[in-house]
């Protein structure tokens, strides 16, 4: 059984059709990188997977549970599929440790001591155990994003969704976030990553998906995808992101 299965997904914003029939199956432990121009629908696709966007039609199954089935507990799905946002969205009124332990405490009903211990383990995992008592406004962008990753991991999700996790970062801070993501990938986490970091895609992805104008235009393992794209649209896109100053 695939970890994520998307069947004929359509998504409208008003009259605008953003996703025009997406079929996608992602296996457990697979790292899938979604690329595409802005406005192509790649972020919307990701946001549909944990139902931050309502599906207009079609079906999504996460770990076998249908998002559209009325009997599915949507909060349970969201704990199965952790989300990391471009803008971090850390809770500014809580320390980093409190950010990480909120889910375990309120959703998993963990005891406070146990949650704190687990939270510290996660902060250690992202290299920020010394920042446990600090508030988010005292962290750099890269540190914020690492805390956000720890916060998602605190629910022990089966899938991690990354929505342009490094796009809001200063260039010198991108590496530390990608390192954490690589570690997760090596540990066998199922990951869906929307990103413009082609180096990351090339190194870590099992499969690269090119979304263009609301459809999956092509998908392939990274070596093949980058060296031999099948469509002209893909070649144009790759040309632009790999040589941003040319043309």
């Amino acid at each position, binding site marked *: 059984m695939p970890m994520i299965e998307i069947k004929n997904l359509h998504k409208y914003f008003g009259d605008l059709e953003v996703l025009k029939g997406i079929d996608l199956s992602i296996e457990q432990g697979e790292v899938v990188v979604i690329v595409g121009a802005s406005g192509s629908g790649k972020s919307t696709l990701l946001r549909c997977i944990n139902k931050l966007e309502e599906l207009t039609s079609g079906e999504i199954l996460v770990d076998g549970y249908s998002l559209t089935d009325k009997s599915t507990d949507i*909060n*349970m799905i969201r704990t199965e599929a952790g989300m990391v946002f471009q803008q971090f969205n850390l809770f500014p*009124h809580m320390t980093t440790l409190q950010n990480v332990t*909120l889910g375990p405490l309120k959703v998993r009903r963990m005891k406070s001591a146990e949650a704190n211990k687990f939270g510290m383990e996660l902060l250690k995992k992202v290299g920020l155990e010394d920042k446990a008592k600090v508030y988010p406004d005292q962290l750099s962008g890269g540190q914020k994003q690492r805390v956000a990753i720890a916060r*998602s991991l605190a629910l022990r999700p089966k899938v991690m969704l990354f929505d342009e996790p490094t796009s809001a970062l200063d260039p010198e801070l991108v590496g530390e976030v990608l390192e954490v993501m690589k570690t997760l990938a090596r540990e066998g986490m199922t990951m869906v990553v929307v990103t413009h970091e082609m180096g990351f895609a090339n190194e870590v992805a099992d499969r690269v998906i090119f979304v263009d104008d609301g459809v999956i235009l092509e998908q392939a393992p990274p070596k093949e995808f980058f060296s031999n794209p099948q469509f002209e649209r893909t070649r144009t896109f790759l040309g632009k992101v790999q040589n941003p100053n040319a043309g």
Partner: protein
Amino acid sequence: MAFDFDASVMWDSVPILMTGIRLTIIITIIGLFFGFIFGATAGLLKLSRNVLLRKLAGAYVESIRGTPLMVQVMFLYFGLPMAVGMRIPPLTAGIVTIALNSGAYIAEIVRGAVQSINPGQMEAARSIGLTRFQAMRYVVWPQALKRMIPPLGNQFIISLKDTSLLVVIGVGELTRTGQEIISVNFRAFEVWLTVAIMYLALTMTISKILSVVEEKVFHVKR
């Protein structure tokens, strides 16, 4: 006719005015306590996904904001008993009016503060599996509350001063007490000056309390 300022009149009026102050404080505290509950409820209902609840809260806010407080209190105290045949004690009528009136304004303060919180906060909270209610309670509300403090302080001060309008139904609060003293000694200048100073002391106390709350509870630097 020479005006002869007599400071001793001010001192002499203080003990009686203190009974008025006591009532002013009681009405303000109880009125604002319920006003905040009404306001928080109506403010959150205005953000509800249920159209009927939104409209209901909107009607409350509009009808209270759109009518003078003095009319509201006279309607409640003199008007309503004629329809229902039961008179409410003036103090109760006064407190209810202050609560309903401040609640309508507080509703808008609450709605505005909650809406000013980045939607990403709600999304992030939902994405870790919190229910809508939990996300509101643990993530959005605490941040919104911090932003509410300055406009709430404004409203608290306005409501405190509005209690003076309760003279029309004979509640023995500060302004009423002042009137009563003047009706005996005719020293309007000294007595109204004393009353004004007392109101100022009360409103400055509210300002001070709120700035301490901002600093100690919400760590806002000034």
